[in-house]
Structure formats: structure tokens, C-alpha cells
């Protein structure tokens, strides 16, 4: 049975190595407050923040500002604790952004702005919607 045991041990060792490597590379979902603290402590690793776009009392999204050349965009994201944060995204504004239910920003703080390298949008529009809009209805 010797070879089988060695074989088994090697598999276990590789599996453990995979788990350790995964844990080491994993990012995390945090709030802006934690992200800010991380940045102040010199931790520049990329993290995920989940939030919603800032809306005014009429439910309209506010604070989205595309840059002059429309190649980047800044917007205000409200995280789960209700903290507002200006986020800079270095790519053109995704057209689904306004319709997003939830936005995940992946990146890190630079000074007072959260620099997002990547956005994940969770849009009801693509698959399921709450209601048909009247403009389409007419």
C-alpha cells in the first residue's frame, strides 16, 4: 500500500496548498470605513465594497459625473452603513449604472477618493424588472 499512501499524501498536500493560496489571495467585502482604515494603515490591497447609488428624495440617482471626455466617471456610493463616498472609475460610465440596484466597487482608497478598478453591477433590468416604464408603455 505504500505508493497509495504517498499518492494520498501528495494530493492532500496540494489541496492544502490550494486552500492556503486561495485564502492568501482572497479579497474581502468591507465598508468604506474599514477600507479607509486599511488605506490609512498602509494596506493598499484591493477590496470590494457593496453599495447603492445616492438618490435624492424623489428616488432619482444623483452625483454621477462623467469626465469631460466621457472616458471616466465619478459617482457617489452609499455603503451598507449609509456612509457616502465619492468613487472614481477609470473606464467610461457603464450604461447600466443608473439602473443598478447594487453596485460592487473593487479597488482601494487614494487620499479621499475611492479608486475603482472594476465595477460589478447588479441590474434588475437585464433579467427582471420591477415595472414597465410609462415611456415604453406609451
Amino acid at each position, binding site marked *: 500500500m505504500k505508493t497509495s499512501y504517498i499518492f494520498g499524501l501528495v*494530493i492532500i498536500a496540494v489541496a492544502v496548498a*490550494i486552500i492556503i*493560496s486561495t485564502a492568501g489571495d*482572497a479579497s474581502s467585502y468591507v465598508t468604506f470605513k474599514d477600507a479607509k482604515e486599511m488605506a490609512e494603515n498602509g494596506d493598499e490591497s484591493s*477590496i470590494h465594497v457593496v453599495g447603492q447609488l445616492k438618490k435624492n428624495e424623489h428616488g432619482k440617482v444623483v452625483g454621477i459625473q462623467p469626465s469631460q471626455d466621457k472616458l*471616466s466617471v465619478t459617482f457617489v456610493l452609499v455603503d451598507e452603513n449609509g456612509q457616502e463616498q465619492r468613487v472614481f472609475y477609470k473606464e467610461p460610465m457603464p450604461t447600466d449604472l443608473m439602473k443598478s440596484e447594487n453596485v*460592487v466597487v473593487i479597488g482601494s482608497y487614494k487620499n479621499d477618493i475611492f479608486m475603482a478598478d472594476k465595477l*460589478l453591477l447588479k441590474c434588475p*433590468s437585464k433579467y427582471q424588472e420591477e415595472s414597465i416604464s410609462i415611456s415604453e408603455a406609451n
Partner: protein
Amino acid sequence: MIHSFIGNLGHLFVIVALITSLVATIAYFKASNTTGTEEEGWKQYARIFFYIHAVAVVGVVYSLFHIIYNNYYEYHYAWSVSSKTLPLHYMISSFWQNQEGSFLLWIFWEAVLGIIIINTNKYWEAPVMTVFSLVQAFLASMIVGVVIPGINLKIGSDPFILLRDAFPNDEFLKINPDFIPPDGRGMNPLLQNYWMVIHPPTLFLGFATTLVPFAYCIAGLWKKRFKEWIRPALPWALFSAMVLGVGILMGGYWAYETLTFGGYWNWDPVENAVYVPWLVLVASYHTMITYKNSNTALKTSIILVIATFILILYSTFLTRSGILGNSSVHSFVDLGLSGQLLLYLMAFMAISVFLSARVWRQIPSSQKEIATYSREFWIFMGATTLCLMGFQVIVPTSFPVYNSIIEWFGGTSNIALPSDQVSFYTQWQLWFAAILAILSGTGQFFWWKKMDKKDLINAITYPILLTLIVAGIILVVAGISDIGYIVLLTTSIYAVISNGKILLRLFKSNIKLSGGAVTHIGMALMLIGILFSSGYSKVVSLNTSGIRIFKDAEDEFNLENVLLFINEPRAMDKYNLNYKGRRVEVKGLSKYVNYHDLGPAEDETKAIAKKDIIIDGRKYADKGDTLDIYHENIYFEIDFTSNSGQKFTLYPRVQLNPTMGNVGSPDIKRSIQSDLYTHLSYAPYLSPDEEVEWSEPEDHEVKLGEQFFINDYVTIVEKVERVNATDLGLNDSDIAIKAIIKVFGEAGEYIVEPLYLIRDRMVARIPEAVEDLGIKITFLNIHPETNSFTIQTSTTQKDYVVLKALEKPMINVLWIGTLILVFGFFIAIYRRYTEFIKMRDKGRE
């Protein structure tokens, strides 16, 4: 009027499909547990119900397609996926755009497979079809959309609901319940691609076929025929691996052709969720083959076959329950089915574990130690490597699941996927792939005869020598220095050469057995193709002008893109580029038409020709004709001339979709060594609210034939003539005069005809613009006393595009490898299926 009949019919078919599959399950279960005439009786009964089930499934498919095809937008499904202008082939693909339709596709394939099983099996029919019918019942319940009264439990999501039922809180629909939207919301422009017509059916056929080996395995465990299930299951496992693999690659090819991230694989959780079961499926048929030849690895085969099916269910759960919402770019929203999906997953896991545990001790296993110089050892290593590859991918992909489980128990967990997914997965997958290449190259030698150490060394000496020579040359020529790439390249070449050696030998002896060698060559070529096209993908659109394209854009953007003004040639890498302008696709014409030669018509899918449409000297339409156009696409014609004089034209495009947003798609110049992959990073004037800004007008007083300059272009007033006012739709008493002005642009002459109108001493002027040159000309005044005219001109920014181009070396090796792989699978499936047929006809199975 609301067409309620077809929806009710469809819903009825769903209910029939669900009930008949349940009845078939019970009848087949009875048939499995009885013998003789009683068994035959139950079987007959079950078959009838399964056939009714299949007919009902076809009925559901027909009803849903009828609704989409006839534009019944009172139905939520048709409204949300289709639109009037969608061509037929996209109507077909819109069918499976939403979850219900894709479940339906899956059910449809399994009904087809069930009928094949009924007609190809004798002994196995009853137990295998019990599992089949049960799975069908679960799937049908996903689209049944029934709310159980009292406890308010919703089962499934009905594709036949009306708009008003989908949006019960919509104020407009409350007041107008019979309202039918005039048009659907249209299809996501990204999905309007021919690959989306064929990729989902292939992928779901792959999903459906994983059920076949699983059903045989469960039947074997249940009926205690632990060994016999392998033979009929093997050809299906091979078929499933082929179809699923091809389905996955089609998705990759679609991404390569349609999305602008520049690749075919992105390690998105949704992609990973199908990659992992495929790896385990490949491992499973390898151990099944080992078992058939040497009686080892039976238990391993059982575990892997079950694991494949469970992983398919797990991947369905991941992608459709909404749990990946915060980690995948593919946004899926929970339809309220996650509980049902989880139940489905748990139920089949429980059945499998129960049946296996019950008989585990009775399953024969070989006590013999696996010798290092046996093929079993090598295959086992390969299967293990495949499983570890899957493990490495599934661990992080399941992060959202861990978070949910921990939260469910009241804890908090916030682990997220690694930020740089490509390098995270590559660091492991690359080395595993290299190990697979070595194993597939060496293991094949053991396949054909008993070997000891000496034989092995003899067999592999020449392939290794040849490999080192070939790899050495390629490494030097291509200048590869990364250690991982060197190892992967060398091992892949070794796999091609050693399998090639075996293939040569089989050509002389028995070609029917060459499936393995051919498949492995295909796989090794794919690895080489992936290595070069991904590892050595290079941006060739480098901005060498020293001028930033946009002042406040990122450095990377300014450095890795070229700015092309219309008709101003520019050098890029080894090419000379010339942006020729915007183009539109007209239905029925093989060539694109200049965007500015067409004016808007009332219907957005039509356009009116502003001048005669002439292509290659042939006239296709007269001025004023109405043409059918594909209004959602604008193509940007870019001429390429390489340093060696080769000329070609690429048309990267932008798809305009007001509801979903504008989307760029690449155009690719394919050649043997590499692909030139181009897409637009930016183009102006794509949104309707972006208006052209004209400069302050400038007046020129000129005589006929006198030259003057607009925006540096030489211009001459050729002629001034009176036009019949009624031709322009004006009053008889009006006076219309047009100036015929010739402008000499870079790419040729333009005739501009601004109008000067007089009605009751009031003067009106209709200017004309030449978008290609960025000029607008107004016929401002006539001075009969000096025999001259005042021509007013204004200018604007000329049309331009910002282009990104990548070179993808050797990507064709990946596609060629895929084709060879598929061919190898065909050989292997043919061989294994004939084996099964022989045994069945002998009455053994």
C-alpha cells in the same frame, strides 16, 4: 386583444409535462422492481407517459415560440426578450435568453435523450428512465409557476405570464389591464450574435447529457449491477464531455468576437461553474476506461460520475439563485427559485449518497497495489490532476456560498474573490496543465502493452529528444523567457509528439482505436494556442505621436490607443491605417453603405437614401428610396495597408441600444500566425443628445468658378441654378435656387447643394453639411449687381475614432486543436458505442 389561448395552452402543457414525468417515474420505478410480464406491463405504461411527456414538452416549446414569433407583447416573456425588428434567428435565440426558456431548452434535450435511451436499451431502460423521469419532474417544476394556496409557496417561474401579472403594482397596467405594448424591449445587443443561436443549445445539450452516465450509475448501484453500468454509460460520458467542452468553447469564441475585453476566457464565476464539472467529467470517463480494462478504479468512477452531475446541479444553483450577484459580471437575479434549486441539489445528493452507502462494501475493488509502470497508475494520476484543477477553481468560486452559510448561522463573513482573477487562476492551472500534458503523452505508451522501466525509456527517448529540439527552436525564435511558459510549451509539444508517434503506429494497425491519441493531440495544441494567444497577446495600437488623445484620460488609455481622423492615414505598428467613415448595413446588400448617405425615416428600422446608392459601379437605390437597415449597428470602416503591401479593411462596430446602452464589438483580421483584434475605445456622436458644435460662421463673397478655402479644402462654386419649387414640396409661387459647390477632400470630391428660398420676399436658407470633412455650407446671399454670391461656412471637429488593436499570436492553434479534439472524441465514441451495441445484442445488457 390579449391572445390568452396560447398562453393557457402553454401553461397546460407545462402541467401535463410535470404530471406525466411524475407518473413515468413511478411506473418505471415499479417496472424496475418487478419481473416478467408485470415488468413489461409497467414499462409499457411508463413509456406511454414518457412519450406524452415529450409531446407536452414540445408543446410548451411551441407555445412559447409562437408567442415570441407573433410578437404577443402582452406576454411578459416576449416583451422582455424580443422586439418587432428582431430577425428570425435572433427570435430563436431570444427564446433561451431568460431563465425559463433556458430551463425549457434543458428539459427539451433531456426528453430527446430519454427517447433515445428507451429505444436503445433493453435491461437498463426501466431503472435509468426512473432517474430520467425524476429529473424531468424537477426541471418541469422550475417553470410550472403555481402558487400553493394557503402557505403562499410559489413553485417555479411560469414563462406564460402576462405583463399585468408580472407587474401587479404597475399603476399604468392597473388602469389599463388589457394594454399591449406596441413593441418589446428588444434583445440585449451583446447577444445578437450567431454564436448565441448555437452556443446555448450546445451547452444545455452538454448539461442534459451529464444525466445519462449518472442515471446509469444510479441504476447500477440500485440494481446492484456494479460493473455492468459502465459499458453503456461510457459512450455517453464521452459524448457529454465533447458536447459540454464544445459548448464552453463556443461561449469563449463568442466572447472573443463580441466583447471587447480582448479574450475568450475571463474566469468569471459563471464560466468557472461549468468548467469544473467538465474537468470532473473528463476525469470520470478516464477512470471508467481504466475499469473496463483492468477492474480497478470502479469506486473512483462511481464517485466521479456522481460528482459530475452534482456539480452541474451546483453550477445551476450558483448561476441561477442570485448568490453570485456580487461577484460575477453576469447579473442574475433570483426568480424566487433558489430554494427549489437547493432542494433539487440536496435531493440528488441524498439519493446518490444513500444508494452508494447502502452497497459500498459490496462493490468489488481491487486489492492489488497499482504498479507505477501500469497504465492505471498514469490514468489515475491524470484523473487526480483534473480533479485538483477543478478543486482549485471551485474553492474561490464558492466564496459567496460560504458567506451565505456563515451568515445563515448568524456569523459574518466577507471574503471576496481575488481581485486579479486571471493571474490567480493561471498560477495553478498552468502547472496542472503541464502535468496533464506529460501524463497524456506518456500514459498512452502504457495503453498498448505491458511496460517496464526499460521499455518506457525506449519508448520515450526519441519523442523526448525530438521535443527538446522543437521546443528549443520555438523558445529561441519566439523569445520566451517565463519559466511557466517554457514548461507548458515544452510539455505540450511533448504531448503532441508522443501521441503523434502512437497515432502513426495505429494508422498501420487499428485506426479505430486512435480516439485517445487524436484527442490528446488536440488538447495539447489547445494548450499551445492558449499559451501564445493569452500569454503573448500584445497591444499594437501604441500612441507614438507624443500627444495625449484626451487630456484627462488615464495614461494607459493615452498610450495604448491610436487616434484616427477621417481620411487622414496614420501609421500603427507595421500597418498604415485610414479611417474611412461610418457605415450602415442595409438589408439585402453585401456591402455597407455610408452612414451620411442615408437620412432618417419615420420608422427607425428604415432610412431614406439622400443620394443614389452605388456600390462597385452598380446602382442599388435611387435618391429618395426607402431602405431597410439594421439600425442598431454602426460600423467604422478602417483600411489597413501592411508594410508588405497587403491590404484589408476592418469594420469594428458599435451597437446602439437606448435601453441597454451602446456596446462596442471588435473586428478581427485572421491570419495563420496571428489575429489582429481591433475595437473602438471611443467614437464621438453616438448618443442622440450629443450635438455637433459648429464654429462661428465665416462669409465668403465669391464668383462662379472662383476658388476659396473651407477648413483648408479647396472649394469652387460650380453652378447656381433655379430648382422647381414644387419638387421640393413648396408652393408654386416660391422661388428656390441651389448652388452646386464642389469641395476637394482628401478622399475625393464632394458636391454640396445648399438652397436659397424666397417666399413673399422672405428669404430662407437650407444649409448642407459634409460630415466627412466637418464643414457646413449655407447659401447666404445673391448679389446680381456684382455677379457674385455670399457663401457662409462653418466648421466642426472632423469625425474621428479612438482605436485599440491587439495582436493574438497562434490563436488559430487553439481553434484547430479544438477541432482535432472533437474529431478524436468522435472516434472514441464510435468505438465505445459499437462495443455497447454488441453486448446488448448478445442479450447481456
